[in-house]
């Protein structure tokens, strides 16, 4: 008899435990638990960004564990291919009399001790860039040059904490690369007027007193 009683208690306890952890019913102790539990069986969604990035020419890159699309660059550079003018050494192209090519580019990136044109541009092969150690880098992969110094930004960009998406949040991931937001010759964001007045709160007196 006693034994039966015990079993009853056990069964009841078991039931209580079962129902107090209502994971199967979609209730969780906190949001993190919910995200963790519900993403365990994640198989993708029906929503896709593919249509949204249709008009943008992209290239796929893999950096570490991240593989994603970035906009193709070379077709966006107006004066590409560079060798159409740079078909001979720089020293031969230089002259005092005619107006300078690239007169509109002023380098405002680090200081003269750190950077000049040749830090990124490959003088031996003008159609491409090169790293600090002289390895050739394609214009489409210009982010590799930025990553040489801006390593923490590079880490964040790969993960998605730095930078912007090309179109939507849904897969496939297509992220803008460094030069889509930053002018590599003058990369800082400028101070400017806000694009609109930050209007007063409609109910300023009441709402404010609540704070």
């Amino acid at each position, binding site marked *: 008899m006693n034994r039966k009683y015990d079993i009853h208690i056990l069964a009841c306890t078991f039931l209580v435990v079962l129902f107090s952890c209502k994971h199967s019913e979609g209730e969780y102790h*906190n*949001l993190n638990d*919910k*995200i963790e539990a*519900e*993403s365990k069986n*994640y*198989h*993708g*969604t*029906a*929503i*896709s*960004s593919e*249509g*949204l990035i249709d008009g943008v020419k992209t290239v796929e890159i893999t950096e570490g564990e991240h593989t994603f699309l970035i906009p193709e660059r070379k077709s966006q550079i107006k004066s590409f291919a560079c060798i159409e003018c740079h078909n001979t050494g720089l020293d031969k192209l230089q002259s005092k009399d005619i107006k300078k090519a690239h007169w509109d580019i002023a380098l405002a990136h680090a200081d003269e001790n750190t950077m000049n044109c040749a830090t990124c541009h490959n003088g031996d092969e003008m159609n491409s860039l090169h790293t600090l150690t002289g390895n050739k880098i394609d214009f489409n992969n210009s982010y590799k040059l930025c990553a040489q110094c801006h390593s*923490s*930004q590079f880490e*964040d960009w790969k*993960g*998605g*904490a*730095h*930078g*912007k*998406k090309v*179109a*939507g*949040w*849904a*897969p496939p*991931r297509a*992220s803008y690369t460094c030069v889509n*937001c930053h002018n590599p010759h003058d990369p800082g*964001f400028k*101070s*400017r*007027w*806000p*694009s*609109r*007045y*930050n*209007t*007063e*709160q*409609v*109910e300023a007196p009441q*709402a404010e007193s609540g*704070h």
Partner: protein
Amino acid sequence: MSEKKKWYSLDLGLNRKKSDTTCGCGKTEGGCGSHKPEMTDDAFLEAAVNASIGEEVRKDGFEQVFDVKMDRRSAFKKLTASLLIGAGAVSTSCSVISGDDSKEKAQIDWEEQFKGNYKLMNDDEKKATVDRLMRSYELRTGKNISMTAENAADDVLFGYAFNISKCQGYMDCVNACVEENNQDRDSQMQYIRIHEMKDGKGFNFNEADDNYYHEVPAEGHFYMGTQCFHCDNPPCVEVCPVSATWREDDGLVVIDYDWCVGCRYCMAACPYDGRRFNWSKPEVPEAEINKNQHYLGNRMRKKGVMEKCTFCVQRSRKGQNPACVEACPTGARIFGNLLDPKSTIRWVLENKKVFRLKEDLGTEPKFWYFMD
């Protein structure tokens, strides 16, 4: 579908007309006696009232509305409904010059007036109300809008992250939000607020400047944005006396503008100042109206209802980023699917030092802040 409706609806015969496009006279449009009787207005009105009220004349106002015989095949059946809807509709219907358009308008108004809560609608009912709203807009303005009623997709839970180190106070996000969401151009309502805060003072909302207008970023200041955080445990939803606001399966906290009674309880319950009440009907110049709308999102609201950020439901359920995320020039705003382990928002949550506002309240906002 009509048998399964959760609310009362009046059939004026307009719906039937679609399958059987003839009336007694064989014509499809107005012009025969049964559509537009040729009498003087007054005589016509009297006849109409008699015919439509008939035996209901002894009933009370309420019953007159709800006990109308639905199958009456009288020449005045359209008039009956028009009378019930209101005096304005009566004059339209009785006017000899008014066409089927105004009658259709009256029918739509009726259906819209007595439809149920969007939250309880099935897909057919959602589609029906969206179709009515689009048709109504077309009848009133002659222009077309596209309104959808997409449901939450499976395996999606929307989340948002805001990089405080990146925000420069440019306000491009607010501009984009106002345009995207058809917010009133005259009033001062903005779903997003950008707070200018002094360096070294932490998040001091009391001393923050929400009305700055000078070149940004200002020396010695940082900027942070707030909006509705789409709490996973939203206190605003609990307090609504009519269930006009709720959390959808993809985590969006939404409002049925047609069900909201404007009591503003939810506004008082929100600990984050996330809700906005419109004191006047939002007016947007026709050319600036965003015609890609969602029932729960940026469709034109009426006066006296609650509004707020919806993470641009009309965009996000199509895979797009909310307008603020797209507009931000500094990349301070990150949006994505919390259930996708490969999404960038998940990477941010797992690799950056993130925090939320008033976390101890247990509201579980799906809006995180972080710094570089």
